[in-house]
């Protein structure tokens, strides 16, 4: 008993303090660092850069192409309307400033200065001029963390838009880690060449299909077990200052269940069979 008391007199305070520190750290971890994200966002607020609109509009050719695209989209919309093809209305993006990068070097993240208060949800899609950037993986009241396309853990289903060759991309390490990713194809014989555009595929559950990802930089057909290509991402991930966040509406994955009694079903009975 005396020894316990002596021990307590010597180490009691230290043990209590250590316990308190561990407890607080555990609580912070349990809340997924929401407090830390909030306070970081608060500190970084004065350092937001204002969106540089002039630089984005400088390129006259890009503007011309954009106008043509709008024109084509409008025509397409009219044709779709004529055909009775309905599509979900595209929602407006939430502009969000980039205020930080990952707090560790094993993951590739962005910290954005917009959160739940501004309508950001988990798994929202983050875009920038140029294409997809990533997906919201953590969100607090006024900040959010984005898992980038170039993250080595993140695999995203993509397709080559010219030939519809499908595969997935994964991040790579090295000095070009932020700007290039590796695409692995599902098939052995694929038709792909340098310069082909790569978009997100319909197989991907993480992203809606058809979003621009990048361009094929080089192809290695001899790679085992399946060919590989190096994709140059079109979004300038390493130099991003502003992004746009769009809510992700996952496609309906409900399977069509077969009718147990097809004979009684109304669709199958043709008018000729009726008495």
């Amino acid at each position, binding site marked *: 008993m005396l020894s316990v008391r002596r021990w307590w007199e010597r180490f009691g305070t*230290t043990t209590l303090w*250590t316990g308190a*520190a*561990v407890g*607080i*750290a*555990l609580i*912070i*971890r349990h*809340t*997924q*660092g929401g407090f*830390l994200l909030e*306070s*970081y966002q608060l*500190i970084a607020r004065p350092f937001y850069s204002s969106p540089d609109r002039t630089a984005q509009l400088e390129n006259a050719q890009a503007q011309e192409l954009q106008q043509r695209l709008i024109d084509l989209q409008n025509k397409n919309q009219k044709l779709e309307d004529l055909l009775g093809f309905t599509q979900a209305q595209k929602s407006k993006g939430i502009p969000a400033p980039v*205020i*930080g*990068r*990952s*707090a*560790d*070097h*094993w*993951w590739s*993240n962005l*910290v954005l200065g917009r959160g739940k208060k501004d309508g950001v949800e988990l798994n929202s899609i983050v875009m920038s001029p140029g294409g997809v950037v990533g997906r919201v993986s953590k969100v607090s009241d006024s900040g959010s963390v984005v898992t980038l396309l170039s993250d*080595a*853990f993140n695999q995203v289903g993509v397709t080559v838009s010219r030939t519809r060759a499908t595969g997935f991309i994964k991040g*790579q*390490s*090295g*000095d070009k*880690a*932020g700007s290039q990713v590796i695409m692995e194809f599902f098939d052995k014989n694929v038709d792909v060449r340098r310069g082909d555009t790569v978009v997100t595929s319909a197989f991907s559950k993480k992203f809606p299909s058809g979003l621009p990802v990048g361009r094929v930089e080089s192809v290695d057909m001899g790679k085992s077990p399946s060919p590989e290509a190096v994709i140059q991402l079109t979004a300038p991930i*390493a130099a991003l200052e502003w992004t746009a966040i769009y809510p992700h509406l996952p496609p309906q994955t409900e399977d069509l269940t077969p009718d147990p009694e097809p004979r009684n079903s109304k669709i199958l009975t043709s008018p000729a069979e009726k008495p």
Partner: protein
Amino acid sequence: MQFPGMTQMLQTVKTPPKIRLILGGVLTVMSVWICLMLLPTRLPGMALAGIGPNWLLIWVVIWSFKRSVWQGMSAGLVLGLLQDAMTEENPTHIFSLMFVGYLTSRLQKQRFLRENFIVITLVTFGMAVVGETVMALQFSSLGNRTLIDIWKHHQLIALSSAILSSLWAPVLYFPLNQLWKWSAIPHD
């Protein structure tokens, strides 16, 4: 002109060891918080190939440098939990930072290492490599990345992080060391 009241006040702040201890504790917690807030930044001149210094690792090294094994390891545990909160929980940073705390506090036993800036720099360099290696081992055991990818990535980040952390370590070491001396927070 003299300010007797001011001088007296400063003296009363300076003299009671209790207040010094409390103030030292608050400032120590603040320093951890500043390190946490520095983690997601990539200020110009502070990053190498998109990789910044590992501020929490620097803090653990400085804390453990003149403390017991247990103190070093508990600092590693607390800061590991906090870094988990900032990133992902799996694999955890607890093991790497605890191991760093353990190794650094064991170094003091050999008396050939005397504290100064150069020694802190060297120790931080080594510990950054050790810390990233522990992380790489954890990733290898998880098995959701290929071994080639992990160890190629490890090579890059261990070196960049070690260089940057060791160069920035003295910046953190000097104020913290002064603070702990002044406030008499249990020190070896």
